[in-house]
């Protein structure tokens, strides 16, 4: 990261290759949309490049990376354009009729369909959560961050993280039950 601060594009390219999967997966699980995840993940790294000169190694780089990614996720949920698109898109969200993608390595098409359907339900349930609950769930369940780390990323106390996860799990439980019906 210090090399990146000096303007070393090769070092920056290595950094992108090393962390792109992490950033992409976090954003994809937050929003549930591949196209948006690609665009926003690219935006994360562009911001890293722009702010590299202000970076000071006071904490782990990954914590800073997660914080930047979380801030972009929060900003995007508040953006004007997204509000409009969500309003228009809400007319078409009920009954997703698109055929699920079948990856090549699954044993059978039926299993793959079930797996894809389960994934769709999970993404829909997570996307229904308020922003901070959604972030807390994604960071805990998929990135396996500790409560302390999540508190730093989201910008709240450990007790607040605990409360967020309690509420998030209760909401997810209700949402998954209703979606399965």
């Amino acid at each position, binding site marked *: 990261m210090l090399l990146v601060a000096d303007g070393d*594009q090769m070092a*920056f*390219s290595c950094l*992108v*290759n090393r962390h*792109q*999967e992490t950033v*992409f*997966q976090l954003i*994809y*699980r937050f929003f549930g949309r*591949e196209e948006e*995840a*690609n665009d926003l*993940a*690219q935006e994360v*790294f*562009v911001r890293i*490049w*722009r702010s590299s000169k202000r970076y000071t190694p006071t904490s782990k780089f990954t914590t800073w990376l997660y914080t930047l990614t979380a801030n972009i996720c929060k*900003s*995007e949920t*508040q*953006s*004007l*354009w997204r*509000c409009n698109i969500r309003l228009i898109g809400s007319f078409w969200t009920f009954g997703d009729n698109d055929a*699920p*993608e079948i*990856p090549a390595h699954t044993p059978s098409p039926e299993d*793959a369909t079930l*797996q*894809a*359907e*389960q*994934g*769709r339900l*999970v993404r829909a349930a*997570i996307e229904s959560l308020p922003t901070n609950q959604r972030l807390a*769930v994604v960071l*805990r*369940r*998929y990135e396996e961050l*500790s*409560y302390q780390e999540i508190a730093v990323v989201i910008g709240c106390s450990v007790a607040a993280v*605990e409360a967020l*996860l*309690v509420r998030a*799990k209760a909401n*997810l*439980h209700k949402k*998954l039950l209703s979606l399965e019906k």
Partner: protein
Amino acid sequence: MEKSLPLPMNCTAIRKKLSAFEDGEVSPVWRSDIEAHLAICPDCRQALADLQHLWLALEDGVPCHPRPDFSQAVMRKITEQSEPRIFDWIRAWDFMFPAPAAVAAMVVLGLVIGGWMGKAAVENRTAVTTAPIQAATFEALDVFAPTPKGSLAQGYLLLVSDATQVKR
């Protein structure tokens, strides 16, 4: 529909900590209390099992990965960043303000600017109309300039000219 009975006091406190207990994020004191309670309370054991089942159910399923040209796309964007584009300004504005707050802020800003401009216009018009009158007064007073020293007229002139100097 059966109304569920309120939980005993212990169960209420334990249920609140079950999520953190499942995540391994409770203190040693809490851990031993919860484990002791779970040993004797089947309802709380079931609640813990539900939480564990929920966590397992959040398995993603179909994996998703960034585009193959992700890295190249990022490098392309950072080399283009020096050229300001209209689209970037719109996106930057859009990132800065959430939708409802943006509308409220624009309304308040419009009222403040409109009020300030209106007030400035009124004050300016008042200053413009009074200035010629004052100028004429100064010129008119010069007619009485050659008055005898120590006379009442001179005293009056001095008084008036001092007052107008102060105003100026």
